[in-house]
């Protein structure tokens, strides 16, 4: 049993890292009051940009191209999210429709660009991050093989970002202001907070983080941009955001939980002990428990109260 665990665990962590960072992106956006179901699309933009950059610059820049590639993926996601911010904040568009359009636009435009820039809808990168055992820590019994073996550097980057996010959201004035815009923008405005600006920051942060998530997908376990990148990771992140009650560490737990279920679903055919369990259970599990969680949460609303409503200063 420990054999199975120690071979699944590093894979689950690798899968959880982008899931977690995308969900965290959603958290910033929704906490500022803008519903973002375009996470899948923003993730795809990041995945495409980083794959394109790395594949065309690896020969001249070497391994440095990989690092630059994930930065570019994150920035591209941030820039693309401005469309969603403009539509939902300035134009007061329905945020769900705008998010849907982001998803459609992203999958169309990235594949369009891939075809017209490279001649193929698939972009392979020559090299991504390499799995490493962390010196020293991987030798710790039990924990070592689970958490510190066969791990990507990006996984730790993601965990650091989660901790920073928690600190920013709950310990700094900026975090209070951002959350106030998602709870009661009228009150926030009357206290002198610039609601429009805070919501822009929230949405753009979500674009950056979702783009980073997409770049991590490419540079760690996927290794290639293609239409298959759009297979629901952004929506799984949305489920993790809700199941984690819109809180950084809640989202961390939910992402781990879902990432694990997803990995077991993908790997179940490889292990005798798991073969009897049809993968439908593991694959649908995150969505089923999220719906159940919503029923339980419904008694006392836990999400940001003003999420989804355009801010109208006239209502003050």
């Amino acid at each position, binding site marked *: 049993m420990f054999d199975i665990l120690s071979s699944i665990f590093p894979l689950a962590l690798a899968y959880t890292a982008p899931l977690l960072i995308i969900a965290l992106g959603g958290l910033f956006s929704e906490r500022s009051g803008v*519903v973002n*179901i375009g996470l899948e699309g923003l993730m795809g933009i990041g995945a495409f940009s980083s794959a394109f950059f790395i594949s065309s610059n690896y020969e001249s820049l070497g391994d440095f191209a990989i690092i630059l590639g994930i930065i570019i993926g994150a920035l591209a996601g941030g820039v693309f999210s401005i*469309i969603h911010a*403009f*539509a939902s904040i*300035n*134009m*007061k*568009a*329905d945020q*769900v*429709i*705008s998010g*849907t*359009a982001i*998803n*459609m*636009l992203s*999958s*169309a*435009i990235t*594949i*369009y*660009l891939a*075809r*017209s820039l490279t001649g193929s809808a698939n972009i392979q990168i020559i090299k991504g991050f390499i799995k490493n055992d962390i010196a020293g820590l991987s030798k710790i019994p039990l924990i070592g093989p689970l958490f510190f073996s066969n791990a990507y550097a990006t996984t730790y980057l993601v965990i650091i970002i989660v901790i920073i996010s928690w600190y920013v959201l709950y310990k700094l004035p900026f975090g209070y202001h951002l959350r106030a815009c998602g709870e009661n923008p009228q009150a926030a405005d009357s206290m002198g907070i610039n609601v429009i600006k805070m919501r822009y920051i929230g949405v753009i942060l979500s674009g950056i983080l979702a783009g980073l998530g997409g770049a991590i997908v490419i540079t760690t376990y996927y290794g290639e941009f293609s239409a298959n990148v759009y*297979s*629901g990771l952004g*929506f*799984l992140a*949305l*489920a993790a955001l*809700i199941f984690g009650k819109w809180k950084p560490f809640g989202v961390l737990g939910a992402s781990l939980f879902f990432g694990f279920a997803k990995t077991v679903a993908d790997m179940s055919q490889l292990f005798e002990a798991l073969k009897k369990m*049809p*993968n*439908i259970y593991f*694959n*649908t599990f995150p*969505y*089923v428990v*999220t*719906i159940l969680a*919503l*029923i339980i949460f*419904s008694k006392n609303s836990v999400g940001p109260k003003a999420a989804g409503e355009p801010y109208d200063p006239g209502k003050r």
Partner: protein
Amino acid sequence: MKKISKYFTNEDYQKKIIPFLSVLLGFIMGALIMLFSGYNPLEAYSALLKGAGFYGSIKRFGDTLLNMTTLIFTGLSVAFAFRTGLFNIGAAGQMLMGGFIAVYIGIIFDLPRIIHLPFAVISAGLAGALWASIPGILKAKFKVHEVVTTIMMNWIAYWSVYYFVPNYIPGNFDTESAVIKESASLRTDWLSSLFKGSYVNLGLFLSIIAVIIIWWILEKTTFGYELKAVGFNPNSAEYAGMKVNRNIVFSMMISGTLAGLAGAVYYLGYTNNIKIGELPTQGFDGIAVALLGLNNPIGIVFSSFLFGFMNAGKLFMSASTEVPKELIEIIIAVIIFFAAANLMIKGFLSKINKVIYRKEGEKNV
């Protein structure tokens, strides 16, 4: 002059021209993207029209109608929910479940056509209704927002089909089901020969019937009136003695039935089998269709024709001009943006109006 100017200022008239302007802007944006990436937009657009059968080939025009058939159903599904104040973003999942049940029945059973085909089609509608009833009930009972639950239901449908197809109705490839029996197919020889081999099928007539029924429910029945009242203002509808919760569930189920039927006409007519690993894009295009058709059944016929010909013509376009077919999806997404972010167009319109009025004023002086 006043007659034209009301289109710029009056909200009701603005609403009517926003769809046209959104489409125009979408195509302009598409042309710009093509120019930037080194293609000739005029060539591409004329290839698109040719590919959609506007001239040259009656078969291609049949394919336009074929694409339109599915979009009428998903458009009606989204619009019906919209009219009653609900956002059914789960049309894709309901369509997938409906389609799966239809294909399953089409493969497993051996019946005469007159029983087999209606059995498969009706079951698809019921499956869609059942799938949509869950978000409806959760909304009515627990006030859980239907957007989130329908998204989750989409992915539950996706993974269910992903498991059931290869395990229960496997086809020649791992990613596809077997082909349905002819007795369950909506394709008919006389339509196909009329359109020189296009797969345009009986679903087209079903979609027209659906348009009429939905129009009738919304405009001519008290039930439809109640549903619209709930959509307009649930509190006052409740106060007026309407059963709001019951109406929410009914509305979702009707919306789901339409999406399930979209699955029937697509998988029993267009493809004749079902693929795993994808949510049907028609479910999301349905949002565009509804938005552009102003949630009106008649408007939906026109907007689904538009998207139908764009989808039908894109393969010919990309084959003859090398413009990637994804260009069409980009245009559809841009149209949705402009239609949803209509404040932008409204602002632009009132600016134009000011310019016109200033000139008028000068003339009078």
